[in-house]
């Protein structure tokens, strides 16, 4: 391994390759900030450039740089304007946006940068040490287990409910699940609930729904509820918006979160059917569940732990997804599928033999991941004050800017004007729900998990001719029990805490 690392170091540290990393990270970060241009589209656009370079190591290093940059940039729009451009950064907006609203945008971006760096770096170390062994872990999960994992993900909804809002959160989750059934599922040959609209045939697009549920109602809220925004971030706190400093106590409180989530996120990322989105939701839920009661109250209102958890987990998971990609040639997500295509176009065949046949490529990618993570941190920390300043722009300019960003995000991916109508329609409904105090995050989570839940469930049903898989596969059963515990334990704890507060003696 040490020998391999040396090969990688000497390849990655050539002048060209270091420039590739820096260039890739820069492009990725800036384009990734635009909702609607996720890592997938950016990489697809960069592939011809990478291929012109010719040298597979240099090309891959460039693409990998673009990939981390885009993931990193994606959190910026989540945190600053509540507009998550990719599913993996939805969870980052739960606490990142409230922090920004409270005038702590600089701090939120710094935590995101550090958490991403740590998650990515720990992930690379794990990838380097365990990649060959982990290829078998990636294949442990069958459809039955993925179904159970999605149930665990859904049970995490409890974490977003807030106090006394459980019924509303459950309702919103169900609405999200229902919305996921629109269009042709992966398993059916016929469109469902499309109302005859061709534009709904592939279902609601994630980006349209994310903009409609998060960014648009938030902008409307700012317009319709000026009293709240006066006390919000833009007024008078400009010094603090740019402030990056994290206190020693804060660092101490997020360190264990980052440590746990780097590892958990990485292993979820290794599973080809799970990925960064599931990793970030589960990371958020787990951290909320093991936090103290006081800290739990903070979640959803600007908790630094609530921001650090998904940011660490999604970056670690992205690194983890390189395990099945490089060692088995299995892409776990749309983005890694494109990377696989690029590898093959460069005459590199990922699979068990890659490490033997092309060690310099394998190791150059690993080393470039280290460099990429470091470059991102170094590039971004000095830029954060300037990026965060966006929020210091007067509301009369900021809100149109957010609206423009939102509309563009929904249009840019599909070039279909009907998406804009769908966005505005759903956005209005979401605004009403927002004012009626219905949480919108569970809806989006239900929507994201819904189709994976249904697909894996029906596949398992078909393979086992019924529900037998629940009892026949121990891991499925174990995960379902875990999901049940995730729902029951927090509500039991909350109940006990309430009873204690009311002075009633508990057991």
């Amino acid at each position: 391994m040490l020998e391999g690392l040396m090969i990688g170091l000497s390849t990655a540290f050539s002048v060209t390759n270091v420039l590739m990393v820096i260039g890739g990270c820069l492009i990725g970060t800036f384009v990734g900030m635009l909702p609607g241009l996720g890592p997938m589209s950016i990489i697809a656009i960069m592939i011809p450039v990478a291929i012109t370079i010719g040298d597979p190591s240099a090309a891959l290093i460039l693409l990998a740089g673009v990939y981390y940059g885009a993931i990193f940039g994606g959190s910026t729009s989540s945190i600053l304007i509540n507009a998550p451009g990719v599913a993996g950064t939805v969870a980052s907006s739960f606490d990142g946006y409230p922090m920004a609203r409270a005038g702590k945008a600089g701090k939120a971006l710094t935590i995101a940068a550090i958490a991403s760096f740590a998650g990515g770096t720990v992930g690379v170390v794990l990838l380097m040490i365990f990649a060959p062994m982990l290829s078998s872990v990636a294949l442990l999960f069958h459809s039955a287990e993925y179904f159970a994992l999605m149930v665990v993900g859904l049970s995490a909804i409890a974490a977003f409910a807030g106090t006394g809002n459980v019924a509303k959160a459950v309702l919103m989750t169900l609405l999200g699940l229902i919305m996921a059934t629109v269009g042709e599922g992966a398993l059916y040959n016929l469109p469902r609930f499309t109302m005859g609209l061709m534009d709904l045939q592939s279902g609601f697009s994630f980006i349209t729904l994310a903009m409609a549920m998060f960014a648009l109602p938030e902008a409307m809220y700012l317009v319709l509820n000026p009293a709240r925004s006066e006390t919000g971030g833009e007024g008078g706190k400009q010094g603090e918006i740019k402030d990056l400093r994290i206190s020693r106590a804060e660092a101490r409180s997020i360190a264990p979160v980052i440590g746990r989530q780097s590892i958990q996120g990485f292993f979820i990322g290794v599973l080809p059917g799970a990925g960064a989105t599931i990793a970030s939701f589960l990371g958020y839920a787990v951290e909320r569940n093991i936090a103290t009661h006081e800290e739990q109250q903070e979640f959803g209102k600007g908790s630094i732990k609530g921001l650090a958890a998904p940011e660490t987990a999604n970056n670690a998971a992205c690194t983890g997804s390189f395990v099945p990609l490089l060692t088995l040639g299995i892409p776990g997500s749309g983005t890694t599928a494109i990377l696989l295509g690029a590898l093959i176009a460069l005459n590199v065949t990922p699979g068990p033999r890659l490490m033997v046949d092309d060690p310099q490529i394998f190791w150059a990618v690993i080393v470039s991941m280290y460099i990429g993570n470091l470059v991102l941190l170094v590039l971004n920390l000095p830029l954060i004050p300037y990026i965060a300043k966006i929020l210091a722009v007067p509301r009369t300019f900021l809100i149109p800017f957010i609206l423009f960003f939102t509309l563009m995000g929904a249009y840019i991916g599909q070039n279909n004007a009907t998406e804009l109508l769908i966005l505005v329609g759903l956005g209005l409904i979401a605004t009403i729900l927002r004012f009626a105090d219905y949480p919108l995050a569970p809806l989006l989570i239900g929507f994201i998990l819904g189709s994976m839940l249904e697909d894996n469930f029906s596949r398992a049903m078909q393979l086992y001719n019924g529900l037998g898989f629940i009892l026949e596969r121990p891991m499925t059963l174990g995960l379902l029990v875990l999901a049940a515990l995730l729902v029951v334990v927090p509500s039991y704890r909350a109940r006990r805490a309430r009873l204690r507060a009311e002075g009633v003696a508990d057991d």
Partner: protein
Amino acid sequence: MMKSTLTRRAFAAAAAAVMGFATPALADSHGGGPMMDSIHFLIPGGAGGGWDGTARGTGEALTEAGLVGSASFENMSGGGGGVAIRYMIDNSESQHGTIMVNSTPIVIRSLTGVFPQSFRDLTLIAGTIGDYAALVVNTDSDIETMDDLLEAFRADPNGTAIGGGSVPGGMDHLVAAMVMEAAGEDPLEVSYIPYDAGGAAMAGLLSGEIVALSTGFSEAIDLANAGEVRILGVTASERVAAYEDAPTMVEQGIDVEFVNWRGFFGAPTLSDEEAQAYRDVLAAMYETDAWEEVRARNGWVNIHNSGDEFRAFLEAQEEALGTLMRTLGFL
């Protein structure tokens, strides 16, 4: 909406003007100049998919080789490709400078009625490349040949699950059913497990959830080169040079051939001259080094069907797939 239409109109007028200038340039007297000033490629899916790669690769080869002055690309996803088809038809007059990439699913989805239109509503330019289909198993599987697979299938059709990256009634399922039918088995007995993408289906095969996988041949070659799968049979008429070790279905006594083609379509109101100009430029492309490089890099097989041949090919495929889909109960 209104505004976007107007802008598109204005753009179309400009494009039409360019086309007007381009037509005389088609004459050979221009010598080394491009055969066409520009082509706009409409891609019915998102960046990074198979359609996207085909359009961008073709555009790259055409401009590199100097056959076309410039190429532009537009991704219009939605409706599994249906939105782009509708757009080509509704805005036909303004889309004479545009060609749309498509492939076998346009035939399948028109048959099921998911698309209200069919290839007949567009101007057929040419089929340019193709990929055969293949059935593969895990390298450490006991199944070595199609005969072994058929034996396992006869013994336990339900336990011999065949997976693929498309919906039931989609291409991967139809290929599996087509092979089984040609082998004398009941295609309705095939236990087909759908995955939402090729990658997930591959993971299903390697994890042992499914016994065999129905997939594209080029994908199968990559996996076979990595030592992960064994190719039981390919749906070509004879062995393919890119991977000579893979036996054909035909040589194993299963009389079936199938090509997943990719090709280009023009707006319905395209004149014969305009359509012919596109066909000529695509035909000229095959002779260039630039195309050879793009083709080899992507592992594509040249399967060129231009104009009327393309129509005959599509009609034959529609007929064959239609019959099979009726047998399977999808129509």
